[in-house]
């Protein structure tokens, strides 16, 4: 047998360390929860409510992100305009700033006594200490994922396909929906799922804006600080399983990509 090269040996050892580091906590969590953990968690109405709140708020955040972010992604992919580089950088900013800071920044706009908060309160919408606060916190920290995925998806569609549709009698908007969207739906869908999953896992920004009603991540934190580890584990386990399921779905979609990216 061939002697393993030094590179393979060293790199495999180093790589194994980080793989183990990622795997161990997750495995430990699955193993150290009481066997009845999952059933116990799902039997707890507060946990059920928190998880349902996480899912629905993440859904609304993703929907708003899609309606407002996908058009921007198209412009970023197709047009050149002044300030484009600035906007592209700005879209990435929420990924790099600490999330409690994002929460505080949102508070400065949407807090009760700030202009965003006042404007929306006239529409009967309160952000701080209420569900809309959760949604905007999720939107802020996770829309980058959808916008970037959509932009890359649109860039992979040959703009001349849109040109052909135009010469065949379709306006730009129809060409977008009939040609561009069907050819980039995988990227749009995986971007949306990624955004949704990222929104579910958000904690830092949400906890600043809305502690109650509690989403799943806040509930886990709350149980941990008030009752201790054993009380935090069942809802934590539930959230991990849920996140992994979403993630598996996402991988399934991006791996299924056929030739040409079309179905």
């Amino acid at each position: 047998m061939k002697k393993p090269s030094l590179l393979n040996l060293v790199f495999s050892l180093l790589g194994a360390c980080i793989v183990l580091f990622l795997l161990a906590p997750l495995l430990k969590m699955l193993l150290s929860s009481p066997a009845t953990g999952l059933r116990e968690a799902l039997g707890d109405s507060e946990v059920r409510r928190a998880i349902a709140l996480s899912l629905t708020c993440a859904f609304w955040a993703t929907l708003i992100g899609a309606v407002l972010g996908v058009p921007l992604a198209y412009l970023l992919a197709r047009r050149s305009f002044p300030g484009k580089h600035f906007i592209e950088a700005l879209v990435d900013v929420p990924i790099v700033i600490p999330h409690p800071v994002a929460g505080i920044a949102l508070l400065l706009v949407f807090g009760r006594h700030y202009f965003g908060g006042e404007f929306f309160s006239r529409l009967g919408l309160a952000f701080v200490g209420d569900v809309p606060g959760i949604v905007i916190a999720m939107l802020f920290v996770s829309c980058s994922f959808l916008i970037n995925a959509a932009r890359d998806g649109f860039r992979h569609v040959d703009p001349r396909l849109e040109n052909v549709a135009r010469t065949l009698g379709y306006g730009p908007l129809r060409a977008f929906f009939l040609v561009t969207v069907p050819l980039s739906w995988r990227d749009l869908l995986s971007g949306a799922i990624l955004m949704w999953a990222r929104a579910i896992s958000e904690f830092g920004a949400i906890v600043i804006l809305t502690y109650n009603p509690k989403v799943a991540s806040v509930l886990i934190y709350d149980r941990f600080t008030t009752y201790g580890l054993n009380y935090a584990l069942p809802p934590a386990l539930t959230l991990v399983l849920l996140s992994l399921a979403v993630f598996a779905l996402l991988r399934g979609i991006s791996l299924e990509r056929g030739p040409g990216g079309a179905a």
Partner: protein
Amino acid sequence: MIRLSNVSSRRGAFALQSINLEIGDGEYFVLLGPTGAGKTQLLEVIAGVQQAASGEIWIDGENVTSLPPEARHIGFMYQDYLLFPQLSVRKNIAFGLRRMPRAEANARVEEIARLLEIEALLGRRVLGLSGGEQQRIALARALAPRPRVLLLDEPLSALDPQIRRELRRKLRSLHEKLRMTTLHVTHDFEEALALAGRLGVIHEGAIVQTGMPDKVFRKPASAFLANFLGVENLLRGNVVRRHPEGPRSGESPDSEFDAEFDAGPLKLYVIAQREGPAYAAIRPEDITVSREPIPSSARNTLEGTLAKIERSWPLVRLTFDVGAPIRVPLVAVITEQSLHSLDLALGARAFLTIKATAIHLI
């Protein structure tokens, strides 16, 4: 009809400079130019997917300069066809028929598919089709809505030579049937000759010459053109079968037969694949020059007068006038040494011998 007056357009560092062009109703106009001459850009400007910076574009007497592409009713086909990969062949062809009632649109799809002989493909997916199939589907898609004019961007250049010849014939017969005003751009001069009613040459964003193909080839307006065209001897004429009753292995369209090429004052023996109007191209190095006729039945021997001598050592380019009384210039290239031993001076009479197989019919 397509009319461009002073159309300019800029994209990046490249610019189309005040293009003037008029293409008559039912005309098949070929615009010939090297890669990067601005051919695709010009078509995109006419189709409206790129804006003209200045100038006017008229289609069938309507000024479309400020109209969006969807209002211009122009059929447009890109070099790489760009079929919609998410749609079936049938839906691709029907794509431009959205305003038509469904039954009528279906009938139109069938009709155009029959015309292009792609009925068998209608139910297929686009992925996995051959280049030739994709080309015909893209053509069907462009023609289905009955556009006012047809723009073809290098329609044959992505195909194998064999299929290219076949589809060239197809394009020609299609044009004879539909008489659609067509602007076809290409870098392939043989393709241009085979299809063009009239011809234009585009170079660095400007149209440098237009006219009948043989005129453009025989009298290139610039050194660039002469070089790019690379054909010194081009004759326009008619191919007639020499033995009409003779053996016809004529089932295959590529089978060859003996024929006479009738180019006015000149009559040449040729090997042809089809009868009718054609161009004959002869490479200067395929012409043998002699003082006395070379007797041989398989060869063409023409008598001519030496009109011009151009030396570029070790070769000499000789231009002869043949076919008196109408003077047709023919260019031959020989070595300096041969010229010396032939002892030819300007005005001298000589015989030019050309093998039938050296005459390339297009």
